[in-house]
């Protein structure tokens, strides 16, 4: 089975049509409520290639986690995908029945969540959890699975892995627990890893270790990684490409250098400027007034117009589409000729 997986992946890269590992097309996620339908994600399209880390960044409520959850098929009802397609390796997965999706989840898409303590079962040893996951997805004997579990723990940097495999989650520190969660996500050699705020619950020195580990895994296994975070620093250091989300839409997407150093969208610019600089003390931080609209009160037109200092009359009427800007694609009327000075 393992061999087969390798064969198929190599087969794909050799084939004439190279699909991106993940392709999301015009995704819309809605939550029907008593007060009407809320759009958590609107018209989000993105692709992630092999060996690439795509960062999804935005503030709370921007829809970044929802995009990840939709890809995993783990939207909490009544939330559902109202429009769009999600393709894994060129095949649609958003319309699969739950039984089929359960086979893909864990096997072909691995997930790492924010809080390592709630991602692990407190009453089973990490070894038991790893062996169960491995045997669920790969046809290995118990002893083979255990050997593989030890290898995985070694790979994610747990010292004395063969001794620690029989420990319970509470016996590990926060950083080590997150490594165990990463080992679990890697258990079946997934093509795509969705990491939702994997470093947010960790201390800074541990955070650096975990982001370095993610990058190493992405490089060594040629997996595609969707990194969901609110931390621009983590994105800058880990991701290859970045998509900035605001109120459920991608406002700017592009190479990490372009988006971090020369953001085009006023929101992305504001977000970068509001981070206190390390180089020296400034008198005042640039701030974006107001806060992100709640999903039940997203304004007409560009969702950012009420906080934007450059907004023109057109911004209040129509939603801008993504257009090519230097090094990135930006959804702003400034770049699509909609704002007349």
């Amino acid at each position, binding site marked *: 089975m393992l061999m087969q997986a390798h064969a198929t992946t190599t087969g794909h890269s050799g084939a004439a049509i190279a699909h991106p590992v993940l392709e999301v097309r015009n995704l819309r996620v809605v939550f029907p409520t008593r007060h009407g339908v809320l759009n958590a994600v609107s018209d989000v399209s993105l692709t992630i290639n092999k060996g690439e880390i795509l960062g999804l960044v935005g503030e709370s409520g921007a829809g970044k986690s929802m995009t990840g959850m939709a890809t995993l098929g783990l939207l909490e009802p009544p939330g559902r995908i109202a429009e769009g397609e999600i393709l894994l390796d060129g095949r649609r997965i958003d319309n699969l029945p739950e039984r089929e999706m359960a086979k893909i989840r864990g096997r072909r898409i691995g997930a790492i969540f924010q809080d390592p303590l709630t991602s692990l079962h407190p009453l089973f040893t990490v070894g038991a959890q790893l062996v169960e996951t491995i045997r669920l997805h790969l046809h290995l004997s118990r002893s083979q699975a255990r050997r593989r579990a030890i290898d995985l723990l070694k790979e994610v940097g747990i010292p004395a892995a063969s001794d620690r495999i029989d420990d319970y989650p509470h016996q590990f520190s926060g950083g080590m627990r997150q490594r165990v969660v990463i080992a679990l996500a890697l258990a079946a050699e997934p093509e795509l890893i969705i990491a939702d705020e994997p470093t947010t619950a960790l*201390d*800074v*020195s541990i*955070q650096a270790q975990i982001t370095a580990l993610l990058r190493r895994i992405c490089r060594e296994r040629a997996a595609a990684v969707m990194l969901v975070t609110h931390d621009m620093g983590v994105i*800058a250091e880990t991701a290859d490409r970045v998509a900035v989300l605001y109120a459920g839409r991608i406002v700017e997407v592009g190479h*990490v250098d372009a988006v971090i150093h020369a953001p085009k969208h006023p929101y992305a610019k504001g977000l*970068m400027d509001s981070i*206190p*600089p*390390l180089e020296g003390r400034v008198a005042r931080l640039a701030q974006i007034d107001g806060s992100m609209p709640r999903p039940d009160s997203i304004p007409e037109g560009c969702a950012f117009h009420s906080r934007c200092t450059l907004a023109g009359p057109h911004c209040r009427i129509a939603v801008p589409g993504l257009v090519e800007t230097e090094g990135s694609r930006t959804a702003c009327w400034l770049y699509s000729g909609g704002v007349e000075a």
Partner: protein
Amino acid sequence: MSAKSVGVTGTRKGTTEAGAALAVRALVKTFDISAPFLNRLIERKPRRYLRAVDEISFDVPKGGCLSLVGESGCGKSTVARLVVGLYSPTSGEIAFSNSGGEQGLTTMVFQDPYSSLNPRWRVFDIVAEPIRELKLRSTENEVRARVEELLQTVGLSPRDGRKYPHEFSGGQRQRISIARALATEPAFLVCDEPTSALDVSVQAQILNLMRDLQDRLGLTYLFISHDMSVVRHMSDRIAVMYLGRIVEEAPSETLFEEPLHPYTRLLLDTIPALDAPNRDREITAGEVPSPIDPPSGCAFHPRCPLANQRCKSERPAVLLRDGDHQIACHAVEEGRYAPAGMT
């Protein structure tokens, strides 16, 4: 090396008398974490103590801002709670300068604006409570005027007083917390991670507000954070804590430009750099050990690249360098460190 040793428990030059709004000397807080009495009796377990804060001393200059930084479990929040009086110290001194007065001398802004505001109270009552409780205004009309003034001070409208906390976003709630903290006209504000529950764009609003208030009202801050960039923005001086002790304390410029302690260097080195995307850096291994059973000698020695036998056995004393740079490290004292590129 022009370092002279200053005993931790001894007195330091220029203490409370001039310039310092707060002077903390040899502050210790231990928590009793023993098993229950019957378990101790039956299982013959000894009493156990956790030294959360272990003989720390610092001054906060009047009108300035001192930040305590460190990773979780280093004792920084315990210091904050000791300073506002939510805990009583096991030993040591906390002395405020006597200019401000008696009641409401210090107040605190908490980390989580969701759990630190009573959800059943209107904002007006939340802000008015300390004023009524301490009888700072005699009539209800005066209280009303004062609350409205406070709400305007923090950038809210007086009409917001009629609303409940759930009607506000995280950033606005933190403004309410600040208004409540300012209600007693304190000269000294303890801020325990005031922005770490907020989004970056909102964080900038709150940090700007706090700096404005400092300038307008002449406040002194004791600021607790784990975010080095926030700390750099807010503070005049920074104290780095590790397992209950201050390992380095210096003006923020100095600390960022010439960090001396290996732990400070590690902290600074782990900040993700926005200007160097995808840089490969050497990651220091290891994690903070349990404060219940801290390492002997210098608590940082198991993770320190410069540790030797002396670091394992002897606790480093606090040295004073260049007048205002305090450091507790044998390697620095002995000159066993390379100033640049050590990491």
